[in-house]
């Protein structure tokens, strides 16, 4: 999904682009259904950040700024997992393959996410499903990443 599509789908929420450059590496902020996205990011980056903040909207509760706390870390992971499932489903990976994408760079571009976000999602699926899994006539390998058609 593109950044614009995510915004339209969540127009009930207060989503603002702000200059968050006062904190190094801060790209997004979530507060009770209000979302700030750093304005100087690319649209692809904004889409990934917005998906993560929407993940907080759907899965988080409480002040989870301190990620040294194991409970907060779990909530951060749950929000990311929500974002990965929103942006990069296994079905979408296969449809990218069907569209002619050959490697993870091309698939990430096809799905409108950054390579880093795509890799994090793949790592997450790796820990959830193991080395790979079959989906219809395709096998997705998570490490090293590859998508193969079984008749290939």
């Amino acid at each position: 999904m593109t950044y614009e599509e995510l915004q339209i789908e969540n127009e009930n929420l207060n989503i603002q682009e702000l200059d968050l450059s006062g904190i190094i590496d801060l790209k997004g902020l979530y507060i009770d259904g209000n979302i700030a996205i750093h304005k100087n990011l690319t649209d692809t980056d904004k889409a990934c950040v917005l998906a993560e903040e929407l993940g907080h909207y759907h899965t988080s509760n409480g002040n989870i700024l301190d990620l040294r706390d194991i409970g907060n870390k779990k909530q951060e992971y749950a929000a990311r997992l929500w974002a990965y499932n929103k942006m990069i489903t296994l079905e979408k990976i296969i449809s990218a393959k069907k569209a002619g994408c050959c490697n993870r760079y091309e698939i990430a571009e096809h799905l409108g996410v950054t390579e880093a976000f795509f890799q994090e999602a793949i790592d997450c699926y790796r820990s959830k499903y193991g080395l790979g899994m079959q989906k219809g006539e395709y096998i997705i390998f998570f490490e090293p990443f590859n998508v193969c058609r079984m008749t290939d």
Partner: protein
Amino acid sequence: MESVEDRLKALILSKYKSIREFTNSIDMPYSTFDSILKRGIANSNITNVLRISNALGIDTEKLADGEIVFKQESVQTIAAHKDSEWTQDELMKIEEYKKLLLAARPNKGEDQL
């Protein structure tokens, strides 16, 4: 200029059908509320003023000073990802961003009468 008592009455009537409905909802005799309006909030019993301000979600201290200001909503959930520990300066910046973000909410104009 309209007195704070008049503005308070107008606020109540914007939220309740009548003053009596409001006084019933906070378990206060109508006559007590009426005498608060006549005598002035600043000269009233603090317990009664607190009961009124809490029911309306307005700042008690400001009300006693003649202002009607809605209390800041307390934040329930806040999240921002950063790989390293937060410094004091960064947490202060988060507070700034929080204010900017909440101020941009579409219904913000209703916060102060």
